[in-house]
């Protein structure tokens, strides 16, 4: 008789196997090769030398810059926040961080042209602050409501 079910391994990283792996490797490889062919075939427009800098840069910016920054921020938050409100505030700040990252292009507003007021019409720094404030207030309210509920239940 088995006792309590065991917790599954967190990130198993199983070695790919079976028909699904080989079939989809073949299919996906063909689609990938088609895309690569198209990219190289249209090199006057796709500029593969420039392209690889941006594609490679994408993974470096994420894995070597954003990843460690988020880890350190998470580590600090876990130590600074009181346990009662920690999960709620961590989640709230994660949402704020994502919204801020998504806003980088409008904040940069590099595409703005003086003769086209319909493009990037807002003051995005002010708008981002308002959006972040709304998320923070909402997140804190939910966190406090939850803390109060847990306290009442115990």
């Amino acid at each position, binding site marked *: 008789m088995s006792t309590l079910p065991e917790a599954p391994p*967190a990130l198993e990283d199983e070695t790919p196997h079976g028909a*699904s792996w080989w079939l989809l490797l073949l*299919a*996906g490889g063909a*689609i990938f090769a088609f895309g690569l062919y198209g990219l190289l075939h249209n090199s006057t427009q796709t500029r593969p030398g420039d392209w690889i800098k941006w594609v490679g840069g994408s*993974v470096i910016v994420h894995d070597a810059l954003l990843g460690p920054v988020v880890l350190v921020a998470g580590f600090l938050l876990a130590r600074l926040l009181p346990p009662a409100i920690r999960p709620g505030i961590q989640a709230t700040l994660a*949402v704020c961080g994502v919204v801020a990252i998504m806003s980088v292009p409008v904040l940069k507003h590099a595409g703005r042209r003086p003769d086209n007021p319909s493009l990037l019409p807002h003051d995005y720094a002010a*708008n981002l602050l308002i959006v972040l404030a709304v998320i923070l207030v909402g997140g804190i309210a939910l966190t406090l409501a939850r803390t109060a509920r847990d306290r009442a239940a115990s």
Partner: protein
Amino acid sequence: MTDPDPERPPRPSARPPRRGEDPVAFVARRLEAHRPPGPFAEGAFSTRLHDDRVAARLGLALAVTFFTCFGTGLVSHFAQHPLHIGFLSTPASPGWLYGVTQGVHVIAGIASIPLLLFKLWTVYPLLFTWPPARDTVHATERLFVGALVALSVFQLFSGLANTTRWYPWQFNFTVTHFWSAWMLIGVLVIHIGAKWHTSRRVLRTPLQIAGEPATPPGHLSRRGLLWAAGAAVGAVTLTTAGQSFGPLKDLAALAPRVPDVGPQGIPVNRTAGGAGVLDTARDPGWRLSIEGDVPTPMSLTLADLRAMPQHEADLRITCVEGWSADARWTGVRINDLLERAGASQGAEVVVKSMQTKGSYRTSELNTIVARHEHTMLALDINGEPLHLDHGFPCRLIAPNRPGVMQTKWVTTLEVRT
């Protein structure tokens, strides 16, 4: 087997691989003993949230948004580059269809940003797997995962930057975004194959199994993390989707466009100044030429066009950057102009602008679009003569068509049979 000298760790070349042994596995066995410290150390990351069950659920959501982007992207590509295969050609109705598919393309792309960031955070510890690859299959899979991460971040960043017309690179955006999308979908299909068994299993496993240690107080649960991801998707969607979806326009605080901001309440992509037509568009000597395969080529003044039967239609104008705006257009049907010039029923039309540069100076109308009741050279927008930036003296407007193909500052209709 003899033990190696404990004083001197063996070099990988010290013992040749056994016959038939996987070379990657051979190197991996040698590396096992040399695990670097820091993030590579066992137990360097907590395991509660860095969990397959979270990763698979976020991965499933990303598969939905990525395939949605790919499908709607193909719709947009073939609307601009027709295949000339009957059932695959873009229909002329419903007129709002392209507005929906391109709006969904941008909304799904923006929603992918939080999903991807949460997903990459969840699986980040796998970056520090040691040894880096166990065998050739594992090495292959990891190489493709690297390509998947790079292409995903690249496609989402370049697409988002394009909606704000920010081009910090040298390549042509549309062509590169298109071919990179095929590469991305290819490595995504490979990734789905690699994670097939794991994800099928863990998607059926609840986030909290009976008997599993509960989330300790003061810590975020797996369910809490997924709620945060959902909230982030909601936040980025609500603050941007109004550029394509009118009812949300007042919430579009972070959108690069607002559907009713622009000259005459309609956004503009390329201005008259940007197109270099400020003077030529206002030239009183402007004429519309109808030429090519027609028995009676014509040259019409603006007054001639205004004297013809005027047609009115409510049509949505949609840009490839995702924004959409509805307007009431008034002008002369292309069909009426073709009839007047005596064009044959099967004629196709090339609409030419006075723009001297740019890749969207002309656009083609197939027979169906050219003869459609709502396809016209518009002279008025919402009851006023077109603003210079909207294409004065006249512009093409047709249903279900990308904005870059709604040629502005028209000078010539070239008829081809």
